[in-house]
């Protein structure tokens, strides 16, 4: 290797090999993947996200949620992802390429400072709890180390005698007297995105385990050891009691 062109060729050859194997070959294998049928319901999967959830995906990206939360559940026996209740398929295989077909960008994440979110839309279906969690994580999850996202909310002073808006965060939980906390469009979009995160459709590549029921484990272990969900349904709304 005593000439410049020779060195260049060596580098070219090595890089071309790596490029062919790790960039081109996967494209040839999976680059044209299309929607498939849900094995149970025969409805198409995955479905493209609705408008608000797609905006929320961009809020998730812009604020770098993926630096602390993954969106991938590893297969059963590889880590305790399934045992923690993060998976929503009753199979050995959990997340597959199909789940990310319409994600722009795909944010698998590389760090689990917070729990996995691949199926947060299955575990948590209450929009208000998610909004509260974004406003102050320690309200819904005492001891959480997640930073609060107060900039996704607007704090407004209430006139004397004025009732808080129906959109505001529940008055009984978070809010100092005389104020109301209104989620911005970004907060609503982000929550819509979180609710849309569910990779639970049984597919050809995720065959069910024999003898298992088609349900995720009943008890997720994300909650702190002591207190469970601290709110009742009445506490989570500003609507007058029925």
């Amino acid at each position: 290797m005593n000439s410049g062109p020779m060195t260049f060729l060596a580098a070219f050859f090595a890089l071309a090999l790596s490029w062919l194997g790790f960039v081109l070959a996967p494209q040839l294998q999976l680059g044209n993947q299309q929607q498939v049928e849900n094995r149970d319901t025969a409805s198409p999967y995955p479905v493209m996200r609705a408008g608000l959830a797609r905006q929320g995906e961009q809020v998730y990206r812009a604020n770098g949620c993926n630096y602390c939360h993954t969106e991938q559940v590893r297969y059963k026996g590889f880590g305790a992802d399934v045992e923690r209740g993060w998976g929503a398929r009753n199979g050995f295989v959990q997340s597959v390429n199909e789940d990310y077909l319409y994600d722009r960008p795909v944010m698998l994440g590389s760090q689990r400072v917070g729990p996995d979110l691949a199926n947060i839309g299955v575990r948590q279906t209450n929009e208000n709890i998610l909004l509260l969690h974004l406003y102050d994580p320690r309200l819904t999850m005492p001891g959480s180390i997640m930073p609060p996202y107060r900039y996704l909310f607007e704090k407004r002073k209430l006139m004397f005698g004025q009732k808080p808006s129906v959109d505001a965060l529940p008055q009984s939980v978070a809010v100092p007297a005389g104020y109301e906390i209104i989620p911005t469009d970004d907060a609503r979009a982000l929550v819509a995105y979180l609710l849309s995160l569910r990779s639970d459709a049984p597919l050809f590549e995720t065959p069910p385990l024999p003898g298992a029921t088609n349900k995720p484990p009943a008890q997720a272990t994300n909650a702190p050891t002591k207190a469970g969900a601290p709110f009742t349904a009445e506490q989570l709304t500003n609507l007058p009691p029925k």
Partner: protein
Amino acid sequence: MSATSSTAQSLPTGDAASPAPVPVAEIDASARGPLLFLFVSAAIWLFIASIFGMIATLKFHAPGMLADCPLFTYGRVHPAAANALIYGFAMQAGLGVLIWVLAHLGRTHLHLLPAIGLGAKLWNIGVTLGVIGILCGDSTGYEWLEMPRYATVFLFVGYILIALGGVVTFHNRRVSQLNSSQWFALAALFWFPWIFASAEFLLVAHPVRGALQAAIGDWYANNLKNIWFGFTGLAVIFYFIPKLVERPLHSHYNSLFVFWTLALFGSWGGIPPGTPLPAWLPAMSTMGAVVTIVPILAVAVNMCRTLEGAGPKFRECRALKFFSFGAMAYVIAGIASAVTAFGDVSKITNFTWFIPAITQLFLYGFFAISMLGAVYYIVPRLLQVEFPKPNAICLTFLLTAFGILFYSVPLAIGGIKQGFALNDPNRAFLDVMQSTLLFFRISTLGDLLMLLASLVFLLNLFGLLVQVGRTAYSAAMAANTRTAEVTP
């Protein structure tokens, strides 16, 4: 490819054909402008990266800190710090040192100076736009490729211009015999545009479908780390260590072997097992990573043999410490990251603090510290003056070295603990996170030391520039007075 025989045949004819080597001082004088620009801006970016890194770390002490300001939320300030470190400091300083090494090994002037100067400016515009873009929420969402599209155009053109200067300098070399540093340098110069263009095109311009995006992202990050940073760092270490201990590199064939095996296998993937991709991808990645253990050990052998008995040199030569520390960190970080590619290990370490601890050891402990040493060596030669406070060089070394130790060691231990705890479903997730917080908080001390190191480095460079400026100013004033006296 036999080096000895080709040396014997080609040297006399080659030297007769090519013009005489340029004197060292003249090379340095020719390279002064663009290199100083690269190094000083790199130092500024290092400081900015450390500040951002510090803010990101403090979020783990007080999550509510700066929570009303979207610019400084963890998910923005953390990637901003990483990008400022990678593109602002590491690649910028790396490019500067590479072209300086190419000029010196070829014993020729630095060529295409205007292109290099323009490239350096474009690069800095790109990094500035990119970091501001990330802070404003324009990040692309792919790790290490966060910079928005409008910034990457500047980066790409800037890189091409600087690399072109390096390649033309190499082509016009006046010593035909090639040194192992030159292979590494050339390969690194060539590697980046390809991986960067591929990744940008397939992720940002025309995104591919599904989790394949993650495969390309991992491939890019792995190539940037193992090949660009690895090769550039090795080129610099293989150049400086033999030069400073005044003896040739222990084995030429050893470095040839390292070059080929790393180029062929070090570039394979970096896709962790368990990723939602076809299983052959992580499997091939793991295989590539395991093979790289051999060249990494070869580097260790080569460096140990070259440094053997060079103890006294460490006392008289400050720069040598930087490079030896870098070589050591390269071996440790390289082996650790190869081991984490095994499925049984990855099961524990993946998604934990262990991975960032090792990445930081590689980026900071191997690459950045070698660049600091190189810049400390090169800048006084460019300006023909010594640093006003030589002890500050030792201070930079100590702060950086201890900073890395205090950062990586607690995080690595905490990461392993965290990994075992996460795999035990009986332990609540929140309890696991709270128990690893302690380790993370210790690592803040490392962040603080590295922040101080970057400040000392920056002040040292500024001090030197101010001194040179003052000397030039008083010389000009003296000349002025003299002419004023003569004219009447």
